[in-house]
């Protein structure tokens, strides 16, 4: 069961140690998905996810209850994850574009794939290709696309997390999707983003 974030924030404010496990269980998968799709590297994604949630706990331990109650947890956690992804990117050179991240990441079709016509239509090779193209997308498109379409944050949440106007973000997501479509259709990304 996914607990409502407002309710969770109130519980965290009352009893951090008692409620933090719920935060972890509710958000660990989406933190991991963001980290994996932004870095394109399953090993980094695990490290970043753990680090982000540990930092979240340590930050909450220093916050006044008032501040915790007003936290927008989804966006706040995404911000921590993205900061760690950026730190990681600075110490690395070339982003991984191989298909191995998916394989190593233990990717499996969603349980509801059978009732999902898109999922059914797609061969897993296509998903792997898409993931590889996503990982190779320039960061200014990749991050908004991941937050909007892999993590399902709203544009308002994106604006809060990335500190850019919603209009800009919509354009960046649109552009990112266009690049991905073209890439999936066989056009090289370098040509498109040049």
């Amino acid at each position, binding site marked *: 069961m996914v607990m409502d974030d407002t309710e969770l924030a109130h519980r965290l404010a009352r009893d951090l*140690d008692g409620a*933090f*496990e719920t935060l*972890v*269980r509710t958000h*660990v*998968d*989406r*933190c*991991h*998905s963001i980290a*994996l*799709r932004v870095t394109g590297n399953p090993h980094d994604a*695990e490290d970043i*996810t*753990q680090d982000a*949630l*540990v930092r979240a*706990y*340590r930050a909450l331990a220093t916050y006044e209850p008032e501040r915790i109650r007003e936290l927008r947890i989804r966006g706040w956690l995404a911000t921590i994850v993205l900061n760690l992804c950026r730190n990681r990117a600075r110490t690395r050179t070339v982003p991984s574009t191989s298909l191995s991240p*998916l394989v190593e*990441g*233990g*990717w499996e*079709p*969603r349980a509801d*794939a059978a009732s*999902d016509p*898109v*999922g059914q239509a*797609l*061969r897993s*090779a*296509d*998903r792997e*290709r*898409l*993931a590889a193209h*996503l990982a190779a997308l320039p960061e200014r498109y990749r991050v908004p*696309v991941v937050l909007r*379409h*892999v*993590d*399902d944050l709203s544009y308002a949440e994106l604006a809060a997390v990335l500190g850019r106007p919603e209009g800009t973000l919509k354009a960046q997501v649109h*552009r990112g*999707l*266009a*690049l*991905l*479509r*073209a890439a*999936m*259709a*066989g*056009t090289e990304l370098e*040509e*498109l983003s040049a």
Partner: protein
Amino acid sequence: MTRTTRTTRTPGDLSGDLSGVLASLAVPAPAHLADDVLVEVGLADRMAPYPSPIGTLWIAWNGRGVVEVNLAQGGAEAMARHEARSGRRTIPAEALPARLADAVARRLAGERRARIPLDLRGRTEFEIAVWTKALEIPLGEVRPYGWIAAEIGRPKAVRAVGTALGHNPVPLIVPCHRVVRTDGTIGQYSLGGPGNKRTILAAEGLDPDALEDDARRGRRLSGSTTTRIVCWPTCRHTRRTQERYRVAFRSLREAAAAGYRACRVCRPTAIEAAA
């Protein structure tokens, strides 16, 4: 720019439902990740066996430090007891993390400076002062409860020192076995009883029977006729003294009357207040 908007469809083209497919790129975190986080912040513990001269120890730890050292028949019993005591979920592990295992081995071998972080949440300042002081007693030496009481500035709290040592959650790592009763007898031990205390002290090179025998005969302190310094009988300085130069005293007062001064390393000053 026209290239970006071309709509040539090829097999596997995702033009229509790209966002739906992107949603399917969400990948659940590996199962261990949530537990790793909870252990790291100290909301869950791990527990693993560790060999010792008195049997298999069960050591619990989290990201804040070592929480507990205990003896148990097996892992299930050790974990159930630890969960009941700590109120935290306890996750079995095969072994201590390499760095921690190394530090514990070095500490048990007498290296007092081997750094072992401890998770002592919920313990009192007094308890922590007692345990910190016990850490100063070197391997192969013992001190009476009264010495700890005096050293931490609470000379009358001898009984409370005994209680705090009995509550030591990390025996061996904090060597409460090196603290003996003020009358010189070996005394109680939380880790499986007084027999184990004698075994551990013997493994550290002491003779518990001889210690008790000396104490019974009033040989409470040991002086050197050459340096005229008086020590606890197990102080490394007095043990270096040859037998023929040794002299025993009942008390520091008796030693002082004979012109001896207290050793500055083992500080046998406390006994007067406690005895």
